């Protein structure tokens, strides 16, 4: 179980502006959590704090009861935390198969890297020998990024907007892949997403805005709320309250 206790994050030089404010969350084994909410609400920052990219200014992070707040990215990775970037970096001179082999190198289970590519909707034959550089499109990069996380035997897998740049067919495949991991393994899956179809996979949905958790509940309750516009995911009441928000009707 991953536990976040009173987590706050202030980026250097932001003069007291907190990106995350007193976040308290528990992520349990074998569950899918979807974090949604408006852009700039702190979702990606939260994912980076979990991976160890950002150090929280306050609060604690516990993995299976063990304090990991100040541990490095490498240590967290070796403890079983993985993170799929929203905008994955490119590597000149490194091939797709080499990157996937690196990702599987710490996994004691034998993983077929061709199956990984298939799971993200890419044909292994076409991609294994391609360089992970600017010759790949944004959508292709995203899928390879997801494959590098699927390659690992993880306790906690965090995906930052995995659907961005992915076409409809692959999207379907991706949703299926998340469902399969969910059924086969005990991995806790945390997905940052705006997509209804991704939210449908969730056991729980968390809504974040302005650096805080504005709602958290079982999927159907939150989803019903979002779809019927009873609860607005936006930080301003732009759907329900058009009359009160002149910016939305310009």
């Amino acid at each position, binding site marked *: 179980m991953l536990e976040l206790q009173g987590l706050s994050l202030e980026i250097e030089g932001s003069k007291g502006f907190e990106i995350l404010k007193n976040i308290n969350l528990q992520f349990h084994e074998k569950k899918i959590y979807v974090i949604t909410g408006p852009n700039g609400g702190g979702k990606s920052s939260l994912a980076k704090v979990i991976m160890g990219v950002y150090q929280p200014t306050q609060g604690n992070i516990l993995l299976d009861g063990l304090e990991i707040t100040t541990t490095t990215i490498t240590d967290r*990775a070796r403890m079983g935390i993985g993170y799929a970037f929203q905008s994955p*970096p490119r590597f000149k001179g490194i091939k797709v198969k080499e990157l996937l082999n690196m990702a599987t190198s710490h996994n004691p289970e034998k993983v077929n890297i061709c199956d990984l590519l298939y799971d993200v909707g890419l044909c292994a034959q076409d991609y294994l020998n391609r360089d992970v550089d600017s010759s790949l499109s944004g959508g292709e990069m995203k899928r390879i990024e997801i494959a590098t996380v699927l390659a690992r035997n993880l306790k906690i897998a965090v995906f930052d907007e995995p659907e961005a740049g992915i076409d409809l067919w692959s999207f379907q495949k991706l949703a299926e892949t998340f469902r399969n991991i969910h059924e086969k393994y005990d991995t806790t899956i945390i997905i940052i997403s705006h997509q209804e179809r991704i939210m449908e996979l969730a056991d729980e949905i968390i809504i974040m805005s302005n650096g805080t958790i504005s709602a958290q509940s079982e999927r159907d309750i939150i989803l019903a709320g979002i779809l019927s516009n009873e609860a607005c995911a936006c930080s301003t009441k732009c759907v329900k309250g058009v009359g009160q928000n002149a910016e939305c009707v310009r």
Partner: protein
Amino acid sequence: MLNALDKLMLEKVADLHEIPQGAYNIRKNGQGVQRNTTANIDIITKLDKPGIDVIIKPYTKGESVHIPVIVTEENINDVVYNTFEVGEYSDVLIVAGCGVHNSGDLKSQHDGIHTFYVRKGAKLKYVEKHYGQGDGKGQRVLNPQTIIEVEEGAVVELELIQIKGIDQTKRDTEIRLMDNAKLIVTERLLTHKDQVAESNISVELLGVDSSAQIISRSVAQDDSRQEFFFDLAGKNKGRGHIQCDAIIMHHAQVHSTPKISAYHSEAQLVHEAAIGRIESEQLIKLMSMGFSEKEAEDTILSGFLK
């Protein structure tokens, strides 16, 4: 005869684990020590100056020539002039590495001046690897000059590699391309400590539909200094592309000067140059897969220089 150190040098510069098959000429401390010729490839010692003439008969296919140079003594300044005649429609590999082992305090230097005539329709892959080692204070210096005339329809692929070990190098490469001739240059360079490396590549597209692609990747570490000068001249209808990428680390310096000149309205010339440090996102990505920061850095650099 070759000793264990010589064999190690040969392995480093020419990937040779034993005496090569095919034609070869091994030069050690300014003297030719072993040579082999084949029915299609002749090697003749020059009479007027130090060096050899390598003559490859027309239509020779799939053969290779290894001409490694080993310098294992200090206080040596070996200048060698080699000429290569690559016959019409032949397809060959020439490997010309230089390994310097200097344990003394005086300088060891080797300057290889290589002139190639790549005849009509021929295909040449030329690999030049530099390697240096030794604990002494003596400088290891290599100043190669490569001049290549590429005739009609011929294809030349050049691989120039120098990873650490050489204290000072000045590499001059001059290439002239005739009608439909094609050139691909891949340059890989890593300098560290206080090493200095300079590479000047000049290419003239003289013939119709000639093309050149130069891909240079380098890593400069510690207090080392690298200087690149690329000069691409389009004197006929043709295409030329220079891509120069450098990763800079510590207190190193990298200077890159591009020059593209068009003398013909259908000459298409592109120069791309970038110098920057390793992106933090790249390090984070590999660390998030369980690599330490050092392992991540090494993986990124070895991929980049591959």
